[in-house]
């Protein structure tokens, strides 16, 4: 196996991890936005009745563990009807999303940096060609990343400011769409990102992210919230799974894919739906991840980019492999600890 093959393998591993972890965080932004819109729609019909509301509670308070906590959303939305079950449910959904994403999204985001650095080091001409050709959607994706990350922490710091939650949701849709559009345009042999194949791949990528997020969040909701919230995410995952599956089907015909990966993706997708019906929330994480990532691998096979010809010198790649190998000694246990620590049941506190 040549150095270029190893490097390509590493880029693929990074891309897959970014889709499965980073992508799901973007998908979570979609569900956050959806919950917010549902709550808003319900609240708007009632807010007129709540004239003379007590105003926003803006103070921070010292929580049970002695550290400062932001006002909860219940206080912040006190102008709404507190007892309204639709709003309570929407808030619970958003809290699950924030709780699940909070500790891990920054680490998940680094996979993107890894992919970019590996590509420009290992295949510099390909990096240069893709980045210069698709600078518009990629710049939009980068700005989406900026807005998404900032708005997420701003919304957490100031839950009473609805704007940040909105910006978080919208940018969570923009970024995967733009990245998917670029991937689709490359897979279609260098068409524009606004071409039908670009638009199609952008939608598919956004859908995949949303699907993964709903699947992961179902298990998170079981751990963090009540049965009702879990059921809502489960229904979301089922709906998203069916929608993405139907969306993926014409693509295989359009791109004329006859790879066994498509069969793998279809089977894993069907198994995931079955597991969701059976409420096997941890097992479905694995099968859904497999279904999503095999779409990515199938798309990679389409690109027709000349990786061997674009590869960097072995001397450059060798040092990078050594650096990554040494880094992995620290990284792998740290990353494992991060996930284990925050996936552990709350009772462990």
């Amino acid at each position: 196996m040549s150095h270029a093959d190893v490097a390509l393998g590493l880029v693929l591993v990074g891309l897959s991890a970014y889709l499965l972890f980073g992508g799901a965080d973007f998908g979570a932004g979609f569900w956050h936005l959806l919950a917010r819109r549902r709550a808003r729609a319900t609240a708007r019909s009632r807010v007129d009745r709540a004239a003379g509301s007590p105003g926003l509670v803006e103070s921070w308070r010292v929580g049970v563990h002695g550290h400062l906590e932001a006002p909860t959303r219940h206080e912040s939305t006190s102008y709404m009807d507190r007892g309204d079950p639709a709003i309570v449910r929407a808030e619970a959904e958003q809290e699950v999303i924030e709780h699940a994403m909070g500790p891990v999204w920054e680490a998940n985001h680094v996979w993107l940096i890894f992919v970019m650095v590996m590509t420009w080091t290992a295949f510099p001409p390909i990096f240069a060609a893709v980045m210069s050709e698709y600078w518009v959607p990629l710049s939009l994706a980068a700005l989406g990343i900026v807005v998404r990350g900032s708005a997420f922490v701003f919304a957490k710091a100031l839950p009473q400011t609805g704007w940040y939650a909105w910006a978080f949701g919208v940018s969570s849709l923009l970024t995967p769409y733009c990245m998917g559009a670029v991937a689709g345009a490359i897979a279609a042999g260098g068409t524009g990102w606004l071409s039908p194949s670009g638009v199609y791949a952008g939608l598919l990528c956004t859908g995949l992210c949303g699907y993964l997020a709903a699947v992961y969040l179902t298990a998170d909701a079981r751990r963090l919230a009540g049965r009702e919230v879990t059921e809502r995410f489960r229904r979301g995952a089922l709906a998203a799974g069916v929608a993405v599956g139907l969306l993926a089907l014409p693509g295989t015909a359009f791109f004329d894919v006859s790879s066994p990966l498509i069969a793998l993706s279809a089977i894993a997708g069907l198994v995931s739906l079955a597991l969701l019906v059976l409420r096997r929330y941890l097992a479905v994480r694995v099968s859904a991840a497999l279904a999503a990532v095999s779409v990515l691998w199938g798309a990679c096979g389409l690109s027709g980019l000349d990786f061997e010809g674009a590869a960097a010198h072995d001397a450059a790649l060798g040092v990078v492999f050594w650096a990554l190998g040494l880094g992995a000694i620290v990284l792998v246990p740290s990353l494992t600890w991060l996930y284990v620590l925050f996936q552990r049941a709350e009772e462990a506190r």
Partner: protein
Amino acid sequence: MDLLAVGASPADFAAARTQMAFTLGFHIVLASIGIGLPALMLLADWRALRTGDAVYRELAHRWAKATGVLFAVGAVSGTVLSFEMGTLWPRFMDTYGQVFGVAFALEGIAFFIEAIFIGIYLYGRDRLPPRVHLLTGVPIVLAGLLSAFFVVTVNAWMNQPRGFRLVDGRVIDVRPLAAMFNPATPPQAAHLILASLMVCSFIVASVYAVALLRDRRRGVTDRYHRLGFAIPFTLGAVLTPLQVIVGDWAVRFVADRQPIKFAAMEGIEHTEAGVPLKIGVFEIPNALSIALRFDPDATLRGLDAWPVEDRPPDAIVHLAYQLMIGIGVALLALAFWWAWTHRHLIRARRGRPGGRSPVRWSPWLLRAATLAGVGAAIAMEAGWTVTEVGRQPWIVYGVMRTTEAVNPAPGLRFGLYVVLVVYAALAAATISVLLRMRRPAAAPAEPDGEDGERP
């Protein structure tokens, strides 16, 4: 697609440089805070754990909250730079990406570790024993320093390219470690890391200086504000004299290795013997020759020693350099003032029973400290301008011109406009969020129980 076939329009080229400068200038301040604030947070957390002092604990919590916000904004604004490397300077990446790639791979690993432990530290307080929790903060600080180092090696390499040979426009004989450990790496890395810690220290201290001045007007003494000021300000004051020494080293390095940049910095127009030192509108005869070569009649090369097309825009470099030096000298004076205020602590630390009354800080010291935060950030931006603009017209000094590196795609300037709008909103939002995250005890209506006002 043939990247070398066409060129960018002058407007797009200028827009690409402006966008890079603007986004980098934005990121550099946040990155500095991202390196320094976790260190301050950890220091306060360690003191809280050792002494059980509630004020330290509150500082640790406050700084952790601010770190959570600022680290995130720093991380995403850094990602933009990775994108821009390709969207703005594809031909630079095409030719040289593999030469300096390993530095970015290492930086990526460091950033990964930072992001992992930021998550563990900020969210794991209730899930870990206090001592373990404190230790999970250590990798954040170490990885932050390392990632700053790795990134600077790339900029140092752009000033002192090494570790490759160029044949027919393609690189061969790539030696990534020789590229990373090029001669400019030690002075630039030391200078930047000190600068980033100083910027963070003085910015944090300036926030508390404002609070102390307000306390003073109200006639109260708040230990929370005093410690919040004293810890970072002392760190900044200790680092400032070191930075002056490192800065001197960096200037001498530039004078030897990039004499044209040095000529631009000092505003030497003509090659001559006995060069005066220009400070604003004043000139001290022979002083620059003495300072640099310890010889009043030493000959220094001026800009006219190089062809016009190789000269950097010298006016802006000279101005930025003087601004950096001027602020540096002011910060040094402030550091000595701070040391003088506490001379009794430096002289006699032992034999003092507890309960000494707090040192009175001059309101003028606090007013100056209020400006020091912004000043340190301006000095850093000015220093960055010196090194970047001073390298022009080259993106890789002596090897590749910036005009050869830029993306030829038309319309780059529209990207700049969008970036300017988004970043202006981001800056405003970041500041407004931080202001609204302030401790509510600062509001007169609500003194904060155990660690509020003390006479």
